[in-house]
């Protein structure tokens, strides 16, 4: 295994981690505000579908991205109504939205495009393709720096760069701004927010909007950046893995990035190991390799997480006494 191989695996890691990072940060805003969002999976799926549909209809990746965000906003809005206004159970609302997203995307996709749930294949200019940073091509042949710069730093889609950038921005918002202070407070002790004269409802909706924007971009990444169209159930559990990563990262942005990269790495290694013959063992069945990241997830979550204290008010509707 030489430098090129390592660079390839690491670059693949970043690509695979992109939707996880976005979904994980999305969940971070929502759960820090005290709203459990098990519906990240459904939102990824919904936004992947709306993005692919609009890309296929208009040909504009930017409109498609907006549509992705719109799809997630719709689902976030329903979740907000159920869990903030009607004080329903947030887990049930989230699970219901996941089912709704899975069913609705397949149904609408099948009836609109008649391709068994797939949306039409998108061409390169209808997607967020890889970006070449300046001098990437020129430096390619410089030893060591060349492959790292052109392979590991350059060459991702715009959305990936945004996802990475979203991590320091989130950390800054959370700990350096008034909004972040209130967001953290409302997820821990909404009564403290209420007695300080701030609307708990408004604050929680603001958090849900940010959640929808981030997860919507993550969903769009699946269908119009990493993929070239919508495939039924293409979120493939990434919403849940993002939630697991969020717990693993103890609801903090930088650890969230690391954990998502780790999950991405496991996935990249898994792809790489397929079809390789091992000494004595021979070729491992592809299913056995594909299951690897998930097994590791279970082990990591069960054994290495330590004490993860969720925001205290997460999952609890706030009732103002009158």
């Amino acid at each position, binding site marked *: 295994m030489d430098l090129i191989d390592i660079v390839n695996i690491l670059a693949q890691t970043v690509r695979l981690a992109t939707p996880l990072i976005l979904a994980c940060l999305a969940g971070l805003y929502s759960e820090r505000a005290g709203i459990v969002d098990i519906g990240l999976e459904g939102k990824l799926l919904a936004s992947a579908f709306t993005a692919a549909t609009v890309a296929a209809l208009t040909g504009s990746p930017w409109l498609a991205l907006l549509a992705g965000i719109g799809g997630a906003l719709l689902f976030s809005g329903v979740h907000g109504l159920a869990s903030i206004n009607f004080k329903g159970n947030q887990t049930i609302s989230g699970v219901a939205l996941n089912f709704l997203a899975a069913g609705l995307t397949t149904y609408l996709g099948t009836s609109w495009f008649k391709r068994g749930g797939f949306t039409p294949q998108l061409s390169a200019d209808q997607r967020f393709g890889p970006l070449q940073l300046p001098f990437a091509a020129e430096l390619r042949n410089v030893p060591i720096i060349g492959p790292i710069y052109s392979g590991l730093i350059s060459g991702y889609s715009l959305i990936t760069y945004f996802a990475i950038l979203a991590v320091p921005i989130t950390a800054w918002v959370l700990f*350096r701004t008034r909004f972040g*202070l209130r967001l953290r407070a409302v997820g821990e002790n909404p009564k*403290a*927010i209420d007695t*300080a*004269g*701030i*609307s708990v*409802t408004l604050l929680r909706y603001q958090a849900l909007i940010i959640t929808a924007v981030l997860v919507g971009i993550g969903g769009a990444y699946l269908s119009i950046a990493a993929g070239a169209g919508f495939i039924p159930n293409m979120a493939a559990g990434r919403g849940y893995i993002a939630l697991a990563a969020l717990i693993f990262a103890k609801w903090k942005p930088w650890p969230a990035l690391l954990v998502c990269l780790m999950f991405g790495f496991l996935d990249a290694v898994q792809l790489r190991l397929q079809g390789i013959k091992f000494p004595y063992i021979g070729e491992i069945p592809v299913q056995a390799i594909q299951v690897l990241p998930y097994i590791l997830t279970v082990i990591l979550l069960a054994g290495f997480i330590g004490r993860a204290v969720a925001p205290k008010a997460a999952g609890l509707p706030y009732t103002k006494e*009158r």
Partner: protein
Amino acid sequence: MEDSLNQNTEQRPDMAAASSLAIELIGINKHFGPVHANRDINLQIKRGTVHGIVGENGAGKSTLMSILYGFYTADSGEIRVNGAPHSITDSRHALALGIGMVHQHFMLVDNMTVLENVVLGAEDSPLLAPTYAKARQVLKRLADDYELEVDAEAVIEDLSVGQQQRVEILKALYRGAEVLILDEPTGVLTPAEADHLFRILRTLRDEGKTIILITHKLREIMAITDEVSVMRQGAMVKTLQTKDTSPGELAELMVGRRVLLRVEKGPANPGKVLLEVENLVVTDDFKVPRVKGVSFNVRAGEIVGIAGVAGNGQSELLESVSGMRDQLLGVVRLNGAPLSLEGDDGAARARAAGLAHVPEDRLREGLVTAFSEWENSILGYQDKYGKGLGLDIDLARKTADEYIKKFDIRPPSKDLKTANFSGGNQQKIVLAREMERNPDVLIVGQPTRGVDIGAIEFIHNQIIKMRDAGKAILLVSVELDEIRSLSDRILVIFDGKIVGEADPATADETELGLLMTGVHSATPTAAGAGTLKNNAGKGDA
């Protein structure tokens, strides 16, 4: 919803307004469902004074202050701040008028720092750095001026309760509070911390701030207030100059002289000791000690009543002896044998050993109101109705029929949901269930709370019948009359300790009131010397 992000520059009302009254409440009424929590309250609070509000738990003090702070909205009435009428709709509005509140249970975010908690909701700009810089300065000044030292960078959950309370005060002062409401501030404090708090409050008053102190401890009222208002059962009884009143007068106003209910009962015939409680220590949900080393006996054929102002540890005492709450220290003996009450099945073991319990709050602890009458009639004893893997429903329903007849439970329909019975009949369901099991010891909390007059008489007679059948009965009630008319012996509890014992036949009400409010901790006085015994240092009396 108001815009929560862009409202930080509030106009401070002109403090030099003509009125010498900081706060004036006129005709305040507040209902919670059927409960009339505040009845036509009028109250005037002068600027630059410490104004005490006393009353038993449930007298409506906290409700009134929550209305002033905008946490509740009054059904009717007017609030004047510095002479000008305002309708305070939320806490932000109250804060803008210079009214700050230190809640009984602190409104702090436990995993954030002191600094973060202080500026929360009072940030100057979207970015926090300038606010933090300013807040550090202000905190330092407040610390110097008022002995309010707290490390600004400390995380709340690492602080002592007294320090957390100081953070609450700092929060209010940082927001420019001119009127500071403190709700039972010393309930969670050690005596040293309480002294420190009082020093802070005096300094604040001397600086011209107005302090409203809600408490049920008369000693604090006498020690620190300038004026005191007494509330009872949702109504304002009287406002007095502290220097012109005495704890005795306040205690009487607080507890009130009520018509003594006549209960027909013969003399007690006490037999051997059935229930023995020795040096019991119990903490509440916040790990604050509520029962602080209590010892007493209850003999067969006698009713021992525990008198006290609500909130002095009697609830925790009942919960502990009946096995609902773990004790920290101490022994409970039943019939001479130690009773193991620890763990989730403590209450079940107590029941099996012959200790029945009628809890204080029947809706929360005595009944499952969504269940039918017959189901509640066997609750806690359901194991006796086993039939194979299931329940012997016929037998259970027959039991329910018996109870309904014997205790005159109305309507006599065992399939009716328990929630649909009246308070008195719900209480009869609980009493029937606990009494008809023929226990050796019966523990009864608030037997007639929210019960109509007719049912009260019936319940009292049932309790006396139990006594005459040779059972030991421990009674806790906030109704002093009930304690006096039912008990054969009265133990007075204050601040988690038994501070005296009295004979109900001769006890003087004022003297009982003084004991209950901790003014005389068990020192016999001239007035009460004949009837009240010092209980300190004695395990049993």
